[in-house]
């Protein structure tokens, strides 16, 4: 499953010491005539936590959905771990890859959704073991043991046999994080993971995410939680109108942003 370091398919083909986990080059995405991404380029290094912020409609959610090919792209290219995502090269052109290959690539990329999207007909444990057992063909007993460890890690060991409908929003989101981690991904994508939560349960989810960042997981987080960005991010990326307009360390970002649009946005949100 792409474990060995395949040849980098990047333009120059250079394989640096620390190959980026994510390499997005000039990504363009249109919905009909509306261009939502107008050439977005971003590299994410191993172990890095990148927070993507910006006003609604700026394309940040679309951008991270392109990274695991939940959205097709209309231009540019995206590589994860050196593998071109969603497409293969044929005579210098990009053609959409087969479903099986795309599915295999997605195994390496965990995703956490705004509205959790837990499987309501399965218990917390069943949600977590489903993909390892069915997709990775992990032995069931082994998958259960792993899932129990993950539930323990997100503080929900006692909710093992509970159905999602009986869990609070924050608990559901923590199960969703555990479910994504169960595939042992190289990269975790978070699409506004706390936007649908009650204020009192946001903290417990952010705590789990901070812990994950500290452990060295490579993460891309679309968020409106500036506190989290300041505390856990290695880098903050500001998007507006389908472009990255500014990026930098959290200190730089929250103390002296260069871009006028960033200043306006932060003054409204902070």
């Amino acid at each position, binding site marked *: 499953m792409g474990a060995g370091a395949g040849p980098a398919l990047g333009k120059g083909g250079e394989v640096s010491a620390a190959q980026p986990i994510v390499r997005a080059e000039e990504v363009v995405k249109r919905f009909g005539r509306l261009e939502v991404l107008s050439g977005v380029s971003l590299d994410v290094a191993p172990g890095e936590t990148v927070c993507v912020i910006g006003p609604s409609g700026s394309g940040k959610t679309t951008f991270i959905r392109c990274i695991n090919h*939940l959205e097709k792209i209309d231009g540019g290219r995206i590589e994860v771990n050196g593998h071109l995502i969603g497409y293969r090269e044929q005579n210098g052109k990009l053609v959409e890859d087969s479903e099986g290959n795309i*599915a295999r690539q997605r*195994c390496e990329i965990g995703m956490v*959704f705004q509205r959790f999207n837990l*499987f309501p*007909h399965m218990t917390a444990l069943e949600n977590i073991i489903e993909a390892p057992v069915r997709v990775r063909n992990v032995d069931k007993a082994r998958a259960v043991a792993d899932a129990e460890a993950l539930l323990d890690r997100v503080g929900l060991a006692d909710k093992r046999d509970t*159905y*999602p*409908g009986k869990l609070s929003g924050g608990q559901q989101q923590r199960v969703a994080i555990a479910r994504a981690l169960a595939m042992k991904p190289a990269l975790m994508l978070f699409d506004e993971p706390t936007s649908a939560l009650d204020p009192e349960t946001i903290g417990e989810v952010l705590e789990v995410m901070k812990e994950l960042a500290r452990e060295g997981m490579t993460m891309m987080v679309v968020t409106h939680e500036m506190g989290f960005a300041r505390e856990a991010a290695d880098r903050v990326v500001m998007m507006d109108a389908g472009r990255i307009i500014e990026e930098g360390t959290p200190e730089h970002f929250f103390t002296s942003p260069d871009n006028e649009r960033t200043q306006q946005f932060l003054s409204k949100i902070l």
Partner: protein
Amino acid sequence: MIAAFEWHIFWDRIVHPDHVFAQALWRTVYIAVLAQVFGVALGLVSALMRMSRFRVLRILGGMYVLVVRGTPVIVQIFFIYFGANLFLGFDLVPRTVGLGPVSLSGAVVAGIVALSINEGAYMSEIIRAGIDSVDKGQMEAARSLGMPHGLGMRRIVLPQAARVIVPPLGNEFNNMLKTTSLLAFIGVYELFLDADVHYSSTFKPSEYFAAVAFWYLMLTVIWSVIQAWIEGRLAASERGDQLSFWERVREAWAPVPGRLWGRAAR
């Protein structure tokens, strides 16, 4: 002169069903069950075709539903039984069809085929609506976990769609029990033909048709009880209740359907 309703004939048909009648009743039931099962399978296939990425499949699935829902079921039955043989130049439906130890009359097979095809078109609509009712985020979550579309459909979407599909499916089966009576016209000896045969020889239409109406009513009433029980179980599993004794029996005895029914969705 108005003929008096002869109650003893009516009661006799109900209280003392003869052997021929019992066979006719059994035939009605198994034809309905088989046609419904195949109809659900056809409906599932055509619903998936109509939701496919491939245009050709979408068009084929759509044509099937359009044509079948747009023509009378009796025409379909006659077409399959009488027409298809001539049309194809060979016997699509031979006089008797041997299936290992059992052999069925050609009319019964043609009837089951015709009713299945008819039912499939209606089930197609119901199943598609059921699949549509499942939140799009469910398939996205499945795909993001590396599940191919088919696996996500089978493990994640269909079990949740089942909750929406089961109530109208129950109504379809209720209809099916009664629609089997049309097979009398191609000579399938089921409940209605049994009544018709008695009527022809005695000229007592009221008594015999009232009696057969009673038997159809019995079948649909029994089914409605079963349907209510199934829907009750579905609602219970939606609430995340503990598995009941019967659910556990089903889990143990029905490897695949157990998931589809017993634990279907919240």
